[in-house]
Structures are given as structure tokens and as C-alpha cells.
């Protein structure tokens, strides 16, 4: 089992969700986050005073899935979230030790 954390542009969230739906990913957790990478923020100007805004708004999507689904999911997220411009985001993949469905107590693949 794997856990994917994808940081994407906020307006790409719907596209990513639809792409993951299409390949049968059954759930996800989404949060609004702020951060920077190579895009390194942007500049805003108010009455002549410049402000460096370091943390750019992004959306973090967390999903868990079976290892055999991984490549397909990574493909789907990349295709859906890519604009080709700097700031498209990153995907992190982690090995996942255990999943438990709280209501039934099911564990592992059954619980995903």
C-alpha cells in the first residue's frame, strides 16, 4: 500500500479529482496549504511599497491506494495538474504500513 501526497495549484483540484475518480480511487483528503518551492512566492505592490509574498496558496491532496494502482494514479495526477508553468507542484509517495476503517475495524487492503 502507498500514500500519495500531491501539492497542486488550487484551480487544478477539480481536474485532479475527476482524473482520480476515473481510475477508481475511492477517497481523498484535501487541505488548503501555503508554501514555496522554486516558484519562490511573488511580489505585491501597495501604494508604492513592495511586499514579497513567500507562501503561495496551494492545495494538498492525500490519497491511499494499493501498490498496483500507483503508476496509473501518478500518471493521472500529473496529466491533470500540469500547466507547464513554474509552480505546478510536487507529488510525494510514501510506503504505507497500515489502514484501519474505524467503523468496522477492517484493516489493510480491505480498509482502503
Amino acid at each position, binding site marked *: 500500500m502507498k500514500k500519495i501526497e500531491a501539492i497542486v495549484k488550487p484551480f487544478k483540484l477539480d481536474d485532479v479529482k475527476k482524473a482520480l475518480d476515473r481510475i477508481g480511487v475511492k477517497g481523498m483528503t484535501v487541505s488548503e496549504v501555503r508554501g514555496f518551492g522554486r516558484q519562490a512566492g511573488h511580489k*505585491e*505592490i*501597495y*501604494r*508604492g511599497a513592495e*511586499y514579497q*509574498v513567500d507562501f503561495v496558496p496551494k492545495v494538498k491532496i492525500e490519497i491511499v491506494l494499493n501498490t498496483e494502482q500507483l503508476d496509473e494514479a501518478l500518471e493521472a495526477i500529473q496529466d491533470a495538474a500540469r500547466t507547464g508553468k513554474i509552480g505546478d507542484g510536487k507529488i510525494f509517495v510514501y510506503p504505507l504500513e497500515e489502514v484501519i476503517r474505524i467503523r468496522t475495524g477492517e484493516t489493510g487492503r480491505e480498509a482502503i
Partner: protein
Amino acid sequence: MNAADTAFVLVSAALVLMMTPALALFYAGMVRSKNALATIMQSLAIILVITVEWMVIGYSLSFGPDHWGLIGGLDWVGLRGVGLEPHAVYATTIPHQAFMVYQCMFAVITPALITGAFAERMRFGAFLLFSLFWAVFVYSPLCHWIWGNGGWLAGLGALDFAGGVAVHVSSGAAALVAAVMLGRRRGYGTQELRPHNLPMTLLGAGLLWFGWFGFNAGSALSAGSLAVSTFVATHMAACTGGLAWMFMEYKATGKATTLGAASGVIAGLATVTPAAGFVGPFCAAMIGLLAGVGCYYGIMAKNRFGYDDSLDVVGIHGVGGCIGLLSAGLFASRAINPAGADGLFFGHASQLGIQAIAVAATIAYTLPVTWIILKVVDKLVGLRVDETGELAGLDLSLHEETAYTD
């Protein structure tokens, strides 16, 4: 007595009243979200305090029977003798109380303008005392000098149609003193002190613009042709002010901003105010352009000198008021308003000198008296909120409420 004039002045008074809540929105959008309510509260409280002050003593000091050209007497304290018959000098076609309540709204908004200079860091009690003392010891004398019957600036022939001396130059000069004496906000230069809600600021700017027609055109005190030419000049200057500011920003950074465009409009309005009733539309357009360029450089000055005039009262009202009073000395024409005078461009060069005296006298009086008032208030109650309160935000630390929930 004239019913149309009375109706016009009452409606204008209501328009000018609205400018203070409008200013509250204009300012509140520019502060951080944790200080939004405290910023609005300052304007709101000023309406309450200064209205009472005005009717008790302020109106008498400003417009009451003259003493030495400097101050009105105490004859009209508590509006004694200020009735429903017209006054023989101030406004001959409307009840005296209509003139009094119209002027009340000017007295209200002027200290409210200053609040932008000490936004996000002044204690509420100190602010109330300061505003009250300032209205009595700065606004009323200046108002008497320029508009009071027998005031020395009026006697000199200084032109100020709707508030260059008493409103804009005075608030701008006071703002400079306040910004320097209170010191910078914590985090100035190291943290982001960005506006938290520019749409709110732009809404405030729109309402200020709307109310300004009452401020300027209403100062004709009569629903006639002078009110019309003033209305037109006011609107023209607002627009060329906004255009000039957009151009300056475009030249500097390649982009025009909404805050910049709105600031240019306010600069144009503030600047045309002293001249609005003496100039035609073309001259008003010139004044607006001067305002946009001059006030743009005016706000840049604070970055160079390092004082934290947080919401640019000095740059817009101070600089704009000075340019406006001097502009009246350049562009005024008796063809527009026979009760006025001709400016330099209409063959009367010495008018510019008289206007310069008005500017210099206003600044020379306002700076030290404002400084003394702030010193006294500081000794009495302390001017600034403590560090914890400032970091938590004034909404919470001064008023125990917050503007926004999660």
C-alpha cells in the same frame, strides 16, 4: 429663507456625514484583519464625540462672534442663539441651524482623517482624548481663521472653498506629528503589513467620492449655479487625479493597481476641495493631474524618511491640501465665482502669495499644537497599546471582539 437651498444643504450635510463611515471602510480595508474593527471604531466614535463637542462649544469657537481674528467667542455655547432664522453673514437663505449642522459634519470628518496616521497602535481612550482636544484647540481656531466672520485669513482674502486649511492641510500636518510621535508599528519593515481587504477599501473610496459632492458642492450653501460648477469641478478633478496616479504607477512598475487608482481619486478630491468653487472644469482637470502626481510622490516620502504614516494621511490630505490651496491661487477666476478672486493665471499674481500664507500659517499652527496635545494625552493615559495588545490585534485587546470568525 429659501426651501430649495435648505433642502440642498440638509442633503449635503447627510452626504458629508456618510463620508466618515465611508472613511472607516476605506481605512479598515487597508489594515490587517486583526485591527479592522478598531479602525472602524475610531471613525464611529469620532462622529459621536465631535458632534457633541461641536454643539456644546466647537461651533461657537469656530463661528461665534470674532475675537482678534483668531477665535470665535463663547456667545453661542450650547447653541445659544443659534436658531432657525438665517444668520446675516454665513448663509442668508437657510436656517442658522442648517449651516451649523452642515459644518458639524466637517468638524467630524477632519479628526477622523488623522486616524490613518496612527492606525493599528493607539489606545482607544488616548485616541478619544486626542480627538476631542484637537477639535477644540486646532480645528476650531483654523476654521475661524478661514471661514469665521472676522477670521484673519478670510480678511487677508485667502480662498478656501470647502476645506483646504481647516480640513486637509490641518489633518495632514497633524498626521505627520502623530505618526512620528507614536512611532512605527511593530513589525514595520520586517513583517508584511499588507491591506487585508481591498474591496472594502474600494467600497469606502466610492462612498467618499459620493459624499464629496455634498462636501464641495454643498459648500455653495445654495442650490444654484455655483453648486453646479463646483460639482462638475469636483468630479473632473477626481477622475484626472485617478488617471494621473494610474499613470505614475504604470511608469514606476508597469502595472496600475486598484488601491492606486482609488488613492488618486481621493487625492484629486482632497486637492480640488479648496478650489472647487472658484475654477472651471479645465482648471479642475489640471488640479486633479497635479494632485495625482504630487500626492503619489507625497506617499513615497514616507518610505524615504521612515515615518510610519500607516494609511497615507500626510501624503494624500497634507500634500493634496497644500497643492489645492496653492492651486486656488493659480486657477481661481471671478468669471466662475464673482465672490471669489482671480488667481495668477487670471491676472492676479498676488493671490498665490496669499494662498501660500494660508498654507504656511496652517502648518505652523497645527504642528506644535498637535505635538502639545499628544504630549499631554501621553502623560495622562499613554498613547500606545502595549506589545501584547498590539500583537494580538486592537480588535481583541481594545474592544474584545473580532471582525472575522474562522
